[in-house]
């Protein structure tokens, strides 16, 4: 010990001591709460995810790399990430619009629309996929054929992610005072400028929340896509690819692609979270 401290390890030690003092002391209640939260998260989320990652890593880095860089794997990952990004963007715009209409406008059938919004959550996704396939499939009654095409995948993802932004933005819009908008109007701002400069900053964190939920859901969606995608390599999303690999007994390959999905999700969610924090700090 004497040797160690003589070797000039004093500064880092002092820092670690200070950081220990800086930490807020947790009371018994919040300490218990934190403990329970961590335990719960570990059991439900961290342990399974760690298992996936360790499975992927078990085969070694070279195998991991070759597993995720096959043509099919890459195409599936690319389609999934791009589709999820597109879905979040479309949702951010349309979800905000729908929330606005629901909160600010009075019209006949408002309550019906309120219920309709949540329907995609309630419907089993495989049923949604079936309905979409009959609607836009080979014998489409509406004359639109999106079967086994990328628009078909996109529509399926949009369907299941519709409620997220609507439901995160709605309560924020409800609690927003309209007086600030009236003040902006009396100061000479038109409706568009009032929305962009007064309303949008207030609801931006909620939009980011909803969009990241939609992104996460779209990244992992399986049920609604599996039928309409037609199982073609060109329209295969990552979850389908993973399922196929498992069926064929290539477990490490499946885990490798899953790990890549995980990494992308973590990155994007962290980014959106940062964006939300930044917007909240400004607001």
């Amino acid at each position, binding site marked *: 010990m004497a040797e160690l401290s003589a070797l000039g390890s004093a500064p880092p030690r002092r820092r670690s001591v200070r950081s220990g003092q800086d930490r807020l002391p947790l009371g018994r209640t919040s300490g218990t709460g934190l403990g329970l939260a961590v335990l719960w998260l570990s059991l439900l989320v961290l342990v399974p995810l760690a298992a996936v990652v360790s499975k992927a890593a078990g085969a070694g880095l070279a195998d991991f790399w070759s597993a995720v860089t096959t043509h099919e794997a890459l195409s599936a990952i690319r389609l999934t990430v791009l589709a999820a990004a597109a879905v979040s963007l479309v949702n951010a715009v349309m979800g905000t619009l729908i929330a606005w209409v629901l909160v600010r406008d009075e019209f006949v059938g408002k309550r019906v629309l309120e219920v309709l919004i949540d329907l995609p959550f309630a419907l089993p996704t495989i049923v949604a996929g079936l309905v979409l396939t009959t609607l836009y499939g080979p014998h489409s009654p509406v004359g639109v054929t999106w079967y086994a095409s990328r628009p078909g995948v996109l529509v399926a993802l949009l369907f299941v992610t519709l409620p997220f932004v609507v439901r995160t933005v709605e309560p924020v819009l409800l609690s927003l*005072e309209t*007086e*600030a908008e*009236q*003040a*902006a*109007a*009396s*100061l*000479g*701002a*038109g409706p568009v*400028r009032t929305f962009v*400069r*007064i309303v949008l*900053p*207030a609801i931006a964190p909620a939009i980011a929340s909803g969009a990241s939920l939609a992104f996460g859901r779209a990244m992992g969606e399986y049920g609604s896509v599996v039928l309409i995608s037609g199982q073609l390599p060109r329209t295969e999303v990552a979850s389908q690819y993973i399922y196929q690999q498992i069926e064929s007994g290539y477990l490490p390959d499946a885990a490798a692609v899953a790990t890549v999905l995980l990494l992308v999700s973590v990155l994007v969610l962290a980014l959106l979270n940062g964006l939300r924090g930044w917007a909240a700090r*400004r*607001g």
Partner: protein
Amino acid sequence: MGIQALDITKRFGAFLALDDVTLEVGSGELTALLGPSGGGKSTLLRIIGGLEEADSGRVVIDGVEATGIPAQRRDVGFVFQHYAAFKHLSVYRNVAFGLEIRKRPKAEIQRRVRELLELVHLEQFADRMPAQLSGGQRQRMALARALAVEPKVLLLDEPFGALDAKVRKELRDWLRRLHDEVHVTTVFVTHDQEEALEVADSLVVINHGRIEQVGSPNELYDHPANDFVMGFLGPVTRLGGHLVRPHDIEVLTADSAGAVPASVQRLVRVGYQVRAELRADAAPATAQVAGPGGGQAGAPGAASVGRPAGAEPDAAAADTAVQLTRGQADALELRVGSRVWLRPAQHASVLTAR
């Protein structure tokens, strides 16, 4: 010039908020719209500001037809009861908002905002966020923001309604002084008659969607057009079938022409003032009743003993309240049970009770 609101009618569903109201506000004046809540005064202000549309009628601001023109092109400054601060913008950016919308050069915006922040005494708070300000400061910021665009008229909707009594009083004085400096035509809505009497050049009393009376504070206080205006602007009591202000009643110790005999029922000291409740002896029975009550109620606080007796025959005949200074009450040697004579003072405003 100034503001003209002509034949304004506004309904909210079945509720008639404004019933064919016509209001003219002189240029450069500070006018108060006064009345009970739900009387229509805020609606009228919002119609003038373009935040609400009238069902019928016209609004003319500074000689320019404003009917149908949206708020953003009316050139009015509007101040709301709950500040309506732009929460995500600093105090500086709040005040600069209207100027930025008008695309004024940056240097001009900077100069103007500094000027205004000085005017409202917030120069050292320019970089704060609205959430870091007190209510009074937020409302001053809102005023600076409204004044920044040099509006033709300034409209304030219960501007001090959300503030505590002390800050309200300060801001009231401050608004008066500000108006003397800036001289923009100003209309403010309030339900506080003291605020209106103290600040405004002219008062408009509004009730049930109609204008009851328009005039200077003194005119309205001294010559109310009806019992509503009289009652809304200050305390009122009844004296022999008339409505009189409690401080406008003379108390005499001997009978005199036109005086009403009465006996003291209750004496309450409020600081330097004494409020006396008296009952005119309409029926001879009252004299009997007053006797025992007076005997027991000599000590302060025992006045309630007289109450049961008062609840007897003609309880419907309302008591007369009289406001006296302590000196006056002492000079008259008023006690519970004392017999006195009451008459309206010489210049008192007197209305026949309905």
